[in-house]
């Protein structure tokens, strides 16, 4: 069965993908529907949803919450994707080297991984952002730095089991180089679980960004959902819409990504195919 057929068997995953596509479309067309700068003071501050021409209300400065969500989608998705890409990149390199070579290299790299897992990750992320100054780049780097160990462990496990597979040994007997074996032979075979864990990591990254923003560690120049929540959190009791709608946006996105991740997992994981 093709991947898509398997994927489509999970109804939740299809719904999730639908939501995700909608969000992506929203991010891509934000400038069409909300041509103005999302930071611009568009009207009466603290207008409830539906009033004064604000679909989802306005915040304490009179900025359009809906415009913020549309423009922020781009940033939040970007942060999620970039952080995940970087984390997966580091994780694959570390995990591949450790799993493939084993022995002292494995030992060393796994100690390093363990070290990063032993540091309380959220505090470490805060520390990195504080040192690098809050900006999109520093947030991406910080999230990636605290996320890669999980990928590294996963990839290492896959490499450990795959490196003794007969098809890899066959490559050895052909005299193939290590790099080529790692990249050309083993890596493609362990991508499925990496894709699954990566998809969930995107969701986690978006959550971490909102958490950092809550603590005041967002980039003040770029509209993101985390920024909106940070800006609206003290208004939660007086103007619930300012913080709630971006919160719902995060919830929906994270939910959708998780559903899609599960769908990918079901489709890629042959063991589970039989049971759903």
């Amino acid at each position, binding site marked *: 069965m093709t991947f898509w057929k398997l994927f489509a068997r999970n109804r939740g995953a299809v719904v999730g993908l639908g939501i995700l596509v909608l969000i992506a479309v929203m991010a891509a067309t934000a400038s069409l529907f909300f041509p103005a700068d999302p930071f611009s003071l568009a009207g009466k*501050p603290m207008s409830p949803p539906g009033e004064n021409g604000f679909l989802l209300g306005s915040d*304490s400065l009179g900025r359009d919450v809906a415009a913020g969500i549309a423009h922020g989608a781009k940033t939040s998705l970007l942060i999620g994707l970039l952080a995940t890409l970087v984390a997966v990149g580091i994780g694959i390199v570390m995990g591949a080297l450790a799993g493939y070579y084993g022995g002292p290299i494995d030992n060393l790299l796994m100690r390093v991984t363990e070290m990063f897992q032993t540091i309380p990750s959220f505090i470490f992320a805060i520390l990195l952002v*504080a040192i690098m100054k809050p900006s999109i780049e520093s947030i991406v780097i910080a999230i990636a730095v605290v996320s890669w160990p999980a990928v590294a462990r996963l990839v290492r496990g896959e490499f450990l089991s795959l490196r003794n597979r007969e098809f890899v040994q066959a490559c050895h007997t052909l005299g193939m180089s290590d790099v080529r074996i790692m990249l050309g032979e083993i890596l493609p075979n362990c991508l499925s679980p990496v894709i699954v864990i990566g998809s969930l990591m995107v969701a986690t990254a978006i959550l971490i960004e909102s958490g950092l923003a809550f603590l005041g560690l967002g980039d*003040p120049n770029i509209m993101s959902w985390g920024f909106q929540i940070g800006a609206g959190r*003290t208004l939660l009791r007086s103007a619930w819409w300012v913080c709630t709608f971006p919160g719902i946006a995060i919830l929906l996105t994270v939910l959708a990504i998780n559903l899609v991740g599960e769908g990918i997992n079901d489709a890629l994981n042959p063991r589970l195919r039989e049971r759903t």
Partner: protein
Amino acid sequence: MNFRIWAAAALCAFGLTAVPAPSQAQEAGGTLVYIVQPEPPSLASFLSTSGPIGLVAPKIYEGLFDYDNDLKIVPALAESYEVSADGKTVTFTLRQGVTWHDGAPFTSADVAFSVMEVLKQVHPRGPNSFREVTSIDTPDEHTAVFNLANPAPYMLRALSSYESPMVPKHLLEGTDLRNSDLATSPVGTGPYKFVEWKKGQYIRLDKNEAYWQDGMPYLDRLVGRFIPDASTRTAAMENGEVMYGAYGAIPNIDAVRLRDTDGFSVTTDGYSMINPMALIEFNTTKPPFDNPAVRKAVSLAIDREFLIENIWFGYGKPATSALSSNFAAVGLYKEGMPNYPKNADVAGAIALLDAAGIMPDANGVRATATLDLIPYGEDWRRAGEYMKQALAEIGIAIELRYEDVPTWLKRIYADYDFDFNVNYFYQLSDPVLGVHRHYGTDQIRQGTHFVNSSRYSNPELDALLAAGAQEADATKRAEIYGQVQEILAEDMPVANLFEMQFLTVYNDKLKEHATSAMGAYGSFDRAWVEQ
């Protein structure tokens, strides 16, 4: 008014306010849980004027004086004082029968030690407040004579427990002041005794049974709680878990809501001694703000009322001069200064820029700059975001920068690596104490915080400031500061935005907590809770 008359008026006021009348029958007993935010680094009010210390330490330590809401002197550890005719000797008569919390008697030796060895040496503002004090004589246990090099009328306004706490000589003498045990377990003469400090949770103070004011304090216990999240502080207030929160502990938006809720009140009383002013510091040494026209354009482009209405929810007053309008009471404030519009004057700002030859490029951008924001809370971020929009209107493109406290302090005051910076300063009870530090050439002190980071230097102004500090005659002094304000309105090294009004939110069951000018920095000796 010459100095003598000024002193006599003060004495006179003394008599009028010596016995405040209770507005309602007090009930003794009970505990007051109030918000202390953030958690203070220590309780050494003789070392630091950090805000949260002020919320706790003045309950334990006392000053020579207290001040009522009209800034009039109220006797505390000093029962009365007398200023000599030349203004160079001030004699304090100290209260008898006062003891430290450990039982030792309070004497003039403690006063001399506190001022000469502690406040003048290690207190951040002490060297300034007491700079004219050359020595203190203690003819007997209850008399302290301050010998001054020059008259220093402002000194009498800096004798509160928050500004100048009296500390126990017998516990501090010969110790390393900066490393004293008193920092974490203070011993004072005040109405409450220090009992316990649970880091991250609360500071507990119990009633001082041996307090010199009979029957006071009314409360059995004070507990200062630390609650990091603003929304939770509001919730705790609503739930009755805390009854008092000052210095914006409850965000203005919530304060406005609680104001309209039964059982809670909001007051702006209790901040008249600190006189906070929100402002923008410009780096006058590099483009674009080395040009006064650009600085003035910024001041013109900002809608001060918008800031107050939408970010501080109506609390605050547009700034109209380099001095706070609160100085009108002592005649130093000058009305009608230009360049401080209530509402944005975009056209005026653009005209200024055009006249200065700063023209827009193809994208309409005349200048670019990075705006640093004081990292003391969300409101300032909102203010920055507003300014970014407002200044875009006049073609100044802004990048916002929000860093943590140490990074920001170092950038602004040590490295001078900034374009302009949103900040707020306490103008305090006299310009000498709170305003001079912005503008004087001698206040360009690299590495010292909250001084002249604009590096604005104007000999003419320096001379005026020096004269103003020593001028005893109120009329002449008003004239001097009038000129100061005119110069600053034109040069605008600092653009004052608005006079801040800090809010105190309290549960209506709590009575008589704002009896002094010090407000939350006061002693709470007369506060009581309706059971």
